[in-house]
């Protein structure tokens, strides 16, 4: 789960990571008050779940509280487009007002689980404030890494080594090493899957602080992190995706016209792929899960048809545990009850497939059945085009 910068900083600060003084605000009046309390000279930062905010005009300096209020007025409600938001951008509804600092140098710090070594890796670079993927591509030797033993955790000497590797000396080196140990504590205690501090700054007074912070938390660990749900910002999510999550349906909205209903994530992706190969565009990713029942299928239909771009529905179910006759019953009842008018193409395979197909045929409803994924995708593409031209 992604969280905002201000939430990430508050989380890290709980474990003693130094961050600048700041206040999250939701209105111009609050922004002005916060700027006054922080001494007037502040940075106004848009809070959205995407990086590259500075490039899109979402991070601006203000010399006094009045300017801060005027800046807040400009940013609040604006649609911020950054390299990470996609062309549609995100509407800004929260700001972080942060004290201005006199910065001597900027560094990068990242902590994540490396899939290959299956261990946490702490990374630092002297090239702070830059896109780390770009640094990795262009000057890979500027990134210093240490692998952390899961049983032992980050050792103080490793933190000192890393601070030295990026060229820190004296007080900032000691402060950076201490900060790393605290970041590690926070990472473990809160089940983070990523902590990125970019930039980590050294001020002219030789203080080391997290000027920006990105934290991603492991959804699978939410059962032992009760505060996690409160950090979720529904404004950052698609309304249909929120609705789907209430029914344990894994749904992602896309831009095409063919709605997909599939069991299993891999098969759901493969179904999108074959639609595209057949000349169509998928409207969504939707995994109804292994144990889908009639109620789940009804919910799935309701959600994917709420997207008014959908011109045809393709159901692709490989029934292993889920029986095809149960699926057919669910589809028939959902189509009847919801009065579904778009063409529905069904491809199912597996347990009790003949019985399922017979039920669909004899339902009197307008289903198109297919024996293979390829055939199903072709039918769906053809039917979606016909509908669109009507």
């Amino acid at each position, binding site marked *: 789960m992604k969280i905002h910068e201000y939430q990430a900083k508050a989380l890290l600060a709980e474990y003693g990571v130094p961050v600048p003084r700041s206040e999250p605000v939701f209105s111009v009046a609050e922004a002005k008050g916060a700027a006054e309390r922080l001494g007037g000279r502040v940075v106004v930062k848009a809070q959205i779940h995407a990086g590259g905010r500075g490039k899109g005009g979402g991070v601006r300096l203000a010399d006094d509280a009045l300017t801060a209020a005027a800046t807040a007025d400009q940013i609040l409600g604006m649609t911020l487009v950054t390299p*990470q938001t996609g062309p549609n951008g995100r509407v800004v509804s929260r700001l972080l007002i942060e004290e201005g600092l006199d910065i001597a140098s900027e560094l990068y710090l990242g902590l994540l*689980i490396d*899939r*290959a070594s*299956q*261990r*946490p890796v702490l990374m630092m670079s002297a090239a702070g404030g830059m896109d*780390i*993927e770009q640094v990795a591509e262009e000057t890979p030797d500027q990134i210093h890494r240490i692998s952390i*033993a*899961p*049983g032992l955790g980050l050792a103080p000497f490793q933190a000192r080594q890393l601070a030295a590797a990026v060229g820190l000396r004296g007080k900032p080196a000691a402060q950076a090493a201490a900060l790393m140990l605290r970041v590690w504590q926070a990472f*473990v205690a809160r*089940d983070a*899957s990523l902590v990125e501090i970019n930039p980590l700054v050294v001020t002219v007074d030789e203080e080391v602080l997290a000027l920006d912070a990105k934290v991603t938390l*492991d959804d*699978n*660990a939410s*059962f*032992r992190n009760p505060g996690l749900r409160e950090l979720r910002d529904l404004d950052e999510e698609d309304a249909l995706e929120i609705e789907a999550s209430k029914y344990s349906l*894994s749904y*992602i909205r*896309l831009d095409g016209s063919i709605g997909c209903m*599939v*069991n*299993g*994530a*891999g*098969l*759901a*992706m*493969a*179904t*999108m*792929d*074959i*639609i*595209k*190969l057949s000349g169509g565009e*998928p409207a969504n*990713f939707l*995994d109804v899960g*292994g144990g889908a029942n009639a109620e789940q299928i009804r919910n799935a239909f309701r959600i994917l048809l709420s997207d008014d771009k959908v011109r045809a529905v393709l159901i692709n179910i*490989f029934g*292993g*545990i889920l029986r095809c006759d149960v699926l057919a019953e669910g589809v028939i009842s959902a189509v009847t009850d919801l009065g579904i008018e778009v063409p529905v193409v069904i491809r199912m*395979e*597996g*347990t009790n497939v003949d019985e399922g197909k017979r039920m669909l045929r004899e339902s009197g409803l307008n289903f198109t059945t297919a024996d*293979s*994924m*390829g055939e199903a995708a072709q039918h769906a593409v053809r039917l979606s085009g016909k509908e669109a031209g009507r």
Partner: protein
Amino acid sequence: MAVLLTRNTRLLVQGITGREGSFHALQAAEYGTQVVAGVTPGRGGGAQDGVPIFNTVAEAVRETGANASVVFVPPPVAADAVMEAADAEVALIVCITEGIPTLDMMRALEFLRGRQSRLIGPNCPGLITAGQGKAGIIPGHICQEGRVGVVSKSGTLTYEAIHQLTQLGLGQTTCIGIGGDPLIGTSFIDALELFEADDETEAVVLIGEIGGHAEEDAAAYIKQQVQKPVVGFVAGQSAPPGRRMGHAGAIISGGQGTADSKMVALSAAGVDVVRSPAEIGEAVAKRLSG
């Protein structure tokens, strides 16, 4: 011979009294697997559908000679169950559970280092050796004894590939679902090594998906070490970047982990990469007849 699991495998089921555990224990037994024990802490001394239940894995192994375990326990305690099985020196541990915290899995994998146990999964459908036995949830009736090994990150997409192989009369040796999580016990490379050494396996189907670097690593290994024909498919060619596509590990981040990168790497290693998931079986047939 097949790999990892045969008719001689003695399977224990961790979480045998749960809904999933009890159902799939029965399914495995029906398929011909020797299901010799179940483990549910606090329920030792009882039985589930004729299978004796023990409180600990160590006890179950001692009493029944179990040498493989399939784990169906809930996510908060699943990593612990895996470690318990490894501590009892169970040779093959198959963890079906989806939703295990990454840090738990990281510690379990650390615990497994230097031990003899092999872990398959987690968040996987398990494995099946056609006509011999199974540990997990892959439906037995779609399999047919045959010539092709299957290794996949997916569940139902694996069934799709298995089904195509059966339809074409090629059949399977062993099918292994390695799982869609970022941290897993058995990699594509581990499976490829086993299939390459197995006399009965004549070709391998490798099904990857977006996220991580496992397919690229497999490609490098295939180029160096695999003589048998490999047919590959990578799911998520049309997936948007930055979105997690169902599986915890299936995400393109920072331009890394795209289907394109994986398909290019596999093709360059001599793998027959099919763009359409409907063509997996035919591609294998073509390679084996050519």
